[in-house]
């Protein structure tokens, strides 16, 4: 920059002129940008002041289902019957039966990221672009607590009577006025049968030295900590205390710090099972059935003797939906035992519909006896629903779990 200037006076002047121009330009730009910045800052401040903080719960949108014969449904991947061409036979059946056009979106990959995507619209009662969404119960309990979902009209869902009695009255929504289960499943333990022929009996087997670095767990707090708490003799559906929760966190943290547990994943854990980074894991029941069908009968899933967790993904209708009646018709349709059985035969998760098992006998009798799809009393006794957390617990316990995940 400070190299001596060429001696030619013409060039010297040229350089001086260019520099003065540059300086003038810099000043002009900075002054303008400062002014613009200040103005905008004030505007944004005003905006932010209106948009933060808790608002009154939104009101339900006016239902225009009668004139608008369509419904948008957001759901998880591999969570509905699918034929070889990528069509959803039961959805087509519903469209033919009711004349309501269904847009089925595989839009939910994770409860938290889905919530993060739509939370602002939810809070304002705006349309989130979906009329029916299936999210896991703990997230649904948050949505109900915050008043983000519409009350369902029981008259539009006569088949609601088919809901399994054990699921009819959850603590977050007694009588199922704002939610209806879609599919459920267990979290338990699984292992690679080829590499571990002796198998696992209990959660403690996961912490054996020979599995060091080859154990995977789920990044879903209620399943991983739930299974560990059960192994420590705590019933996760009971009114356990924070110190009991922290005991499980301590054990979990120790296993992560020691390198026993290396993989903590969401849906991506299946990938680790298949490339054998993970030989044994805390995992979800239906997934194991699915990858066994894909990659040979290589893995085994059990509910440990100490017990696993039972979760449900549940239909809700957001406040901003203008097609609630259509969504209700959709739910009603999926509560027909025959339809529920058809879905269950494909997704291999627990169906919440009474009578689906009998309907399954005619589709695939073997599946009708599969404990992971149609669990009997004995199996259900081994699985516990993680109790609903208070808002405060969601914050504090969630932070503790994330700390382990972030290595703090």
């Amino acid at each position, binding site marked *: *920059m400070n190299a001596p200037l060429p001696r030619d006076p*013409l060039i010297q*002047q*040229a350089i*001086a*002129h*260019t520099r003065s*121009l540059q300086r*003038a330009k810099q000043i002009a730009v900075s002054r303008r940008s400062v002014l*613009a*910045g200040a103005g*905008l*800052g004030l505007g*944004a*401040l005003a*905006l*932010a*002041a209106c948009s*933060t*903080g*808790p608002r009154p719960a939104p009101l339900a949108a006016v239902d225009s289902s009668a004139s608008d014969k369509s419904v948008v449904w957001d759901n998880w991947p591999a969570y509905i019957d699918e034929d070889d061409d990528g069509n959803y036979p039961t959805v087509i059946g519903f469209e033919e039966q009711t004349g309501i056009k269904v847009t089925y979106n595989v839009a939910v990959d994770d409860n*938290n*990221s889905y919530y*993060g995507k739509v*939370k602002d619209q939810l809070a304002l009662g705006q349309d989130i672009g979906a009329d029916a969404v299936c999210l896991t119960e703990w997230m649904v309990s*948050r949505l109900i*607590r*915050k008043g983000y979902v519409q009350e369902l009209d029981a008259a539009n869902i006569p088949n609601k009577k088919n809901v399994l009695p054990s699921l009819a009255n959850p603590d977050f929504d007694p009588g199922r006025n704002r939610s209806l289960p879609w599919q459920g499943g267990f979290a338990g333990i699984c292992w690679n049968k080829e590499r571990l022929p002796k198998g696992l009996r209990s959660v403690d087997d996961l912490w054996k030295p020979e599995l*060091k*670095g*080859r154990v995977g767990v789920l*990044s879903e707090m209620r399943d991983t900590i739930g299974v560990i708490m059960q192994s420590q003799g705590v019933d996760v559906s009971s009114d356990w205390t924070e110190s009991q929760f922290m005991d499980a966190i301590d054990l979990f943290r120790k296993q*992560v710090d020691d390198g026993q547990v*290396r*993989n*903590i*994943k*969401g849906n*991506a854990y299946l*990938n*680790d099972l298949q*490339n*054998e*980074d993970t030989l044994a894991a805390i995992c979800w029941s239906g997934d194991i059935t699915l990858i066994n069908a894909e990659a040979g009968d290589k893995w085994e899933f059990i509910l440990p003797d100490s017990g696993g967790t039972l979760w449900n993904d549940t239909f809700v209708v957001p406040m901003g939906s203008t097609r609630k009646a259509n969504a209700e018709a959709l739910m009603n349709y999926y509560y027909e035992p025959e339809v529920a059985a058809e879905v269950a035969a494909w997704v291999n998760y627990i169906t919440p519909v009474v009578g689906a098992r009998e309907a399954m006998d005619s589709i695939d009798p073997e599946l009708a006896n599969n404990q992971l799809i149609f669990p009997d009393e004995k199996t259900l006794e081994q699985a516990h629903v993680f109790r609903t957390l208070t*808002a405060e617990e*969601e*914050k504090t316990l*969630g*932070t503790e779990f*994330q700390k*382990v*995940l*972030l*290595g*703090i």
Partner: protein
Amino acid sequence: MAFAAFASSDAAVTKPPRRKSTIALVLLLPGILYMVLFFLTPLISLVITSFQAELPGGDIGDYIPGLQWQNYVDGASEYLPHILRAFGYALVATVFALIISYPIAYFIGVKARRWPLLQSMMLTLVIAPFFISFLLRTLAWKQILSDESPVVLALKAVAILPADGHLTGTPFAVIFGLTYNFIPFMTLPLYTTLERLDIRFLEAGSDLYASPATTFAKVTVPLSMPGIISGTLLTFIPAAGDYINASRDFLGSSKTAMLGNAIEANFLTLQNYPIAAALSIILMAVILVLVGVYVRRSGTEDLL
């Protein structure tokens, strides 16, 4: 334009050219609007969020406007390892990317000048990874570096890795992923400066009895400095904020979490927006300071 004015008479030099050009303003308008809407507004809202306070007795994700400096203190102290990891990993990855990219760029830009076809083919190869999604490429590496992969088995066979060693979930895998993913950002700026390197300077160096190493150090490197600076910046800045490579779902584990992962967890899972915003601003500020010092030290302010 300035030069033309200058050439005609001395008076023209002192008289500034038209200061207000409406056409220039109109042409700038889309850019200014874009920056205001998509950069300035989110930035301001981020700053405001970073000062929010928790609503007493509120639900998860409920915050009220406030002036909580504490958010910065809490974030910086709780996530100090993540901040250090972010910049440490990014620095190592940048150095590796430079070491790998320089010979590639030199070959394409200088040695391959005689064969334009080879030159363009090699350039295409450098850019080719962009044809595949960033996520898929990183997932592919996760597969290649997994425990039962030939890579790991071979490394174990020659005892480079201990018998119970792993690659995925280690700092090595994360830095490897960062280096791999940002190499094109290093190679391309290096290539554009080396491509214009005047070979006659190198010839002059050897005419003056400089060894090839001296010529490289005293002529080639200083002349390619603009490329080195922009390449390292283009690599270091995104690498420091990256959260994909270090994510547990990709090449990292809970022990390799970088600042980006901490921000993601606070924002998406914990709904702790103030801490997430404070961490983002800390990240931005540290990058700004580091880059400023770096550019000043390397004497290339003119580049910015």
